[in-house]
């Protein structure tokens, strides 16, 4: 293991006020971005506590704890409707204002807004500072924008839940932490957000905490995340060891001086960061928590477990692009984990029946794509996919949520205890739920990668870059990248297939919900459909902001109306260009020779769209013909490969047998054998032994005067002997 020699090179500190002034842009009240959700959390939290207290005292007195006894909900349930989404809307507006300001300015370095010195010791200083640059701005927009839509959706979805105010409190808190995560100006702040969103995820997964399974799922998410956090922490220690600081600016500016490119240090740091990212973004082998996380309310799944939090890992890798660019081995690992995760999750998604589980695995799979992108150095592509994925996956979840909402009501009214999330119980929902059906199809086509929807551009860019970097002249892992490329294509096909399966089973075919319940199926209220529509629009056009030059003619909006060819690429350039430079320097130029023998990107795009479309059509035809049975009437669980996939490659079982149970057994052994028996036993033994010795010694005290005289004489002899002989 080698370490960069100490080289205190004079590098400039970028957050110098002079530099900021040159940029000519002052951020607009950036603190509000954080304060608004925080204020929302505090207000909602207070309301939630009051509501919960009221319901608790009702419960104690044995009364009906339903807060909606009257026609109107109590005040504690009315205000969150305005506070929760309102805070987000305002935050989104502030973010937009800043975005507009930033796009107007020619910003080449991040704007750091320090608030106070958070942790300052003799040698370490972490300030509570936020950093506004193109990347964090984009993330902020996604978080607040998509976040607002999901808040809005939740107003309808959670309306009748007694924990309504608590729900919004958690959601606001989540946004607060997520914004800290993306806005933090150093790894320390990022970590605050990192664990904070983990906490909110924990609370929201276990939102219905009196259900043991849901509480379990939350706990599992937290613990698995903590494994990732372990990596993050150690990476921070290493970075601090090298740079003496955790500030992004100093680290990235000094990385080349302080570390050897491709050296052990940077590789270790990046791998450890990847461990953190794998935990947060549910990559192999830490992906197991995300499917369970579906126990939370569906909008939560949309916001946290699809659009924002789980992409934090990708964001972090992109944020650390300079470091990753310096560590090709780590890049290969990141990309490998990404593509493998994508494949594994996609295969599992093929055989799931729970609609949310399918989406969860789909999310894992798409995150895998993002990591593939980030791993191969296509950071822009990864962020691009992150963004489009936020749109269409949020849409999918919300759509699924609408369906579940409807199913739940219908089944509830019908008095059935069937699982409203099981697709086998659905079918034919397109009739009562037309909006959701259309929106979902848009999202499905987008995720499948059909031109010109959002997913097409982002996913293809990743796949294309994989091929391109595979051909880079100095790439030591060129062959590996080629394998990644093939696997990625395969996975894209699988994606198209399982998404079509989801659509068919949910919306098409015969309704399997039962005659009684069918009458109660209905379209979601408007407050829920509006977000669906907005997201559907975004899923369609969201991809147009980064159309490759070769394809720019293909998108109508680009004819003067939206002059945005490769806009995202240019937008993120100040953040990623150093990484790109480094990578190019290390691996050589990426191959322009495209994989289809000179037919160019257009042909490639055409082919990929066609392939995806073919899969969709083929799957639709094939699956529509199949007759599904409701869950209750389904046969025995499948065996063989199907069973293997249905059981999620037995990851949970392996972890349970291989890690969890041994750990618990070890803990028990430590307690009973080591702690109680050996250590405490020794302690007690000392006590007992002393008293036993006392008892034994007291036996000499026979009460016989002659014994005493004898002992005395013996003593005299001993002392005499000692005195005379010595």
């Amino acid at each position, binding site marked *: 293991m080698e370490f960069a020699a100490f080289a205190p090179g004079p590098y400039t500190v970028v957050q110098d006020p002079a530099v900021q002034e040159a940029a000519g842009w002052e951020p607009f009240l950036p603190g509000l971005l954080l304060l608004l959700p925080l204020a929302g959390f505090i207000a909602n939290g207070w309301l939630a506590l009051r509501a919960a207290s009221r319901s608790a005292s009702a419960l104690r007195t044995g009364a009906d704890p339903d807060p909606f006894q009257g026609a109107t909900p109590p005040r504690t349930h009315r205000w969150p409707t305005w506070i929760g989404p309102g805070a987000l809307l305002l935050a989104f507006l502030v973010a937009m204002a800043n975005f507009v300001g930033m796009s107007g300015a020619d910003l080449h370095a991040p704007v750091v807004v320090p608030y106070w010195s958070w942790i300052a010791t003799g040698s370490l200083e972490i300030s509570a500072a936020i950093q506004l640059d193109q990347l964090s701005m984009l993330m902020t927009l996604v978080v607040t924008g998509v976040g607002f839509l999901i808040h809005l959706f939740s107003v309808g979805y959670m309306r009748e839940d007694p924990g309504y105010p608590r729900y919004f409190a958690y959601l606001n808190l989540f946004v607060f932490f997520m914004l800290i995560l993306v806005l933090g100006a150093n790894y320390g702040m990022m970590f605050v957000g990192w664990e904070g969103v983990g906490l909110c995820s924990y609370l929201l997964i276990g939102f219905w905490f009196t259900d043991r399974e849901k509480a379990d799922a939350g706990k599992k998410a937290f613990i698995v995340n903590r494994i990732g956090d372990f990596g993050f922490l150690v990476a921070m220690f290493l970075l601090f060891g090298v740079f003496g600081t955790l500030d992004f600016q100093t680290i990235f500016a000094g990385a080349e001086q302080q570390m050897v490119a491709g050296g052990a240090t940077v590789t270790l740091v990046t791998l450890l960061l990847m461990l953190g990212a794998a935990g947060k973004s549910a990559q192999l082998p830490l992906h197991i928590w995300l499917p369970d996380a579906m126990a939370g309310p569906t909008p939560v799944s949309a916001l946290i477990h699809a659009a924002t939090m789980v992409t934090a890992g990708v964001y972090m890798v992109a944020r650390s692009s300079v470091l990753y660019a310096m560590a090709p081995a780590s890049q290969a690992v990141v990309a490998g984990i990404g593509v493998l995760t994508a494949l594994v999750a996609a295969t599992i998604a093929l055989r799931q029946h729970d609609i949310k589980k399918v989406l969860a695995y789909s999310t894992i799979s798409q995150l895998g794509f993002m990591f593939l992108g980030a791993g191969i150095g296509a950071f822009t592509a990864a962020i691009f996919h992150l963004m489009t994925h936020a749109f269409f996956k949020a849409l999918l979840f919300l759509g699924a949520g609408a369906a579940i909402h409807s199913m739940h009501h219908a089944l509830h009214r019908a008095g059935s205890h069937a699982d409203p999330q099981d697709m086998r119980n659905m079918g034919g929902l397109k009739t009562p739920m037309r909006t959701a059906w259309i929106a979902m199809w848009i999202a499905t086509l987008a995720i499948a990668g059909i031109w010109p929807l959002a997913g097409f551009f982002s996913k293809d860019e990743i796949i294309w870059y994989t091929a391109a970097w595979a051909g880079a002249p100095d790439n030591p892992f060129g062959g590996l990248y080629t394998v990644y490329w093939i696997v990625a294509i395969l996975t894209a096909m699988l994606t198209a297939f399982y998404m079509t399966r989801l659509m068919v089973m949910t919306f098409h075919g015969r309704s399997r919900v039962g005659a009684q319940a069918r009458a109660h199926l209905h379209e979601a209220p408007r407050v829920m459909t509006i977000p669906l529509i907005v997201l559907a629009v975004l899923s369609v056009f969201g991809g147009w902001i980064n159309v490759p030059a070769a394809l720019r003619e293909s998108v109508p909006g680009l004819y003067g109306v939206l002059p945005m060819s490769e806009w995202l690429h240019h937008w993120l350039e100040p953040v990623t260009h150093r990484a790109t430079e480094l990578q190019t320097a290390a691996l050589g130029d990426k191959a322009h020779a495209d994989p289809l023998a000179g037919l160019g990107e257009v042909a490639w795009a055409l082919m990929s769209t066609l392939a995806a479309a073919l899969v969709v059509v083929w799957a639709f035809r094939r699956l529509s013909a199949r007759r599904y049975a409701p869950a209750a009437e389904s046969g025995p669980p499948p065996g063989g490969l199907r069973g293997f996939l249905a059981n999620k490659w037995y990851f949970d079982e392996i972890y349970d047998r291989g890690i969890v149970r041994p750990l618990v057994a070890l803990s028990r052994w430590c307690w009973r054998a080591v702690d109680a028996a050996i250590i405490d036993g020794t302690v007690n033994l000392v006590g007992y032994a002393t008293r036993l010795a006392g008892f034994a010694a007291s036996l000499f005290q026979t009460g016989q005067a*002659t014994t005493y005289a004898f002992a005395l004489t013996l003593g005299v002899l001993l002392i005499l002997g000692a005195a005379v002989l010595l």
Partner: protein
Amino acid sequence: MLSHALMLSAALFVIGTLGVVVRRNAIIIFLCIELQLNAVNLAFVALSRYTGIEGQLYVFFVMTVAAAEAAVGLAIIIAIFRHYKTVNVDQFNLLKW
């Protein structure tokens, strides 16, 4: 000469000691102790030949003390005899451990 006297004294003392250890009768034990004291007296007398007259003086002290001791001792033995109806010290083991 001195060593002979001291030897005799020591021998007497040892006999007394042995008596204390092996005998069971309180009075005999007490007499053995007296024997020890007298062994000491013998030593004092013998030593006084070399160190001056005090040695012989001390013998009187010891004898006086021994007499006083005997008075108290016998009283105690009588007292305990009233309780136990014996002077066998082996019987007196109410207090032990």
